[in-house]
């Protein structure tokens, strides 16, 4: 079991992600915006951060940068509705560990989360 921080401004999206991750046996903490995520994130506790891109005040790219400043080894799974190939490449250039598209398919999530937690860089 791992501790995972789920960052998304949509309550609906957080609830879906929480249900899927808890079904996989993980412990979930939620953050509803970028500032909340930075306040809650603990390198000692959270083994993975799932991160939405489009959020008010502080978008996912800024949150990612700040998380990496705190912990260069942070594992970040971006969960986004943006399905564009170029967006995915840009995210990979930014150093995200993996990308998964919304709506989240639980089988895909299971594969990606397992891969990330085991140290493989995967993309879905």
């Amino acid at each position: 079991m791992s501790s995972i921080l789920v960052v998304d401004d949509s309550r609906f999206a957080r609830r879906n992600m929480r249900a899927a991750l808890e079904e996989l046996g993980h412990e979930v903490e939620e953050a509803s915006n970028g500032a909340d995520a930075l306040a809650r994130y603990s390198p000692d506790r959270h083994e993975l951060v799932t991160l939405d891109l489009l959020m008010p005040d502080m978008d996912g790219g800024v949150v990612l940068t700040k998380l990496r400043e705190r912990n260069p080894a942070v594992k970040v799974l971006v969960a986004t509705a943006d399905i564009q190939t170029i967006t995915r490449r840009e995210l990979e250039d930014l150093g995200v560990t993996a990308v998964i598209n919304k709506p989240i398919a639980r089988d895909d999530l299971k594969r990606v989360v397992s891969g990330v937690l085991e140290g493989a860089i995967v993309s879905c």
Partner: protein
Amino acid sequence: MLTETQHDALTELINISYARAAGALSQLTGYRVGLEVPHAAVYPLSEVSARLKRSLDAQVTAVSQVFSGVVSGNALLVLDQKAAVILSDILLDTSSASGDWSGEWPEENREVITELGNILLNACLGTFGNLLKVHVTFSMPLLQIDVVDSIMRSTEVAGENLSHGLMIQTKFHLREANLTGYLVIILGVTSLDRLVAGLDTWQ
């Protein structure tokens, strides 16, 4: 406004994009989504409101999302009241009286339709972007429950002289209900030209 070849290419592009969006909707709701062939056409912006009002309720639910890049504009998912209520009920696993619409929706219902709009608009425009090799960047989705005219008046984008609407109409069937939804992509002349150029070179 479009040549026959361009219209054919646009129709195919939309079919692929809508199939992606329908797949996303089915995955979210857990129901099979039946999709009628989408009808697409480009109209001057002044005509878009009138056309939307012909087949939608007076008050509608719209999720809009400004996008920017080589092609920029404003994309809207416009749903009639029944569709919005049914979809939010399914996604939240609740049961509203579909006829009891006050316009004052609980925050949770508003959030769920906003997220749905975000996913469906991204599925459509993202597929456009991938196929035409045109990258667009999305802003935050905005939910509005209002009359069509007010919603269309609010589609202005800073720095863009929006002039045309690519209007895509479809009906979809979900859980034995016929739901009506429109996707409207509002573009300026330059962006429309770039979209058409993309259709010309799409292979």
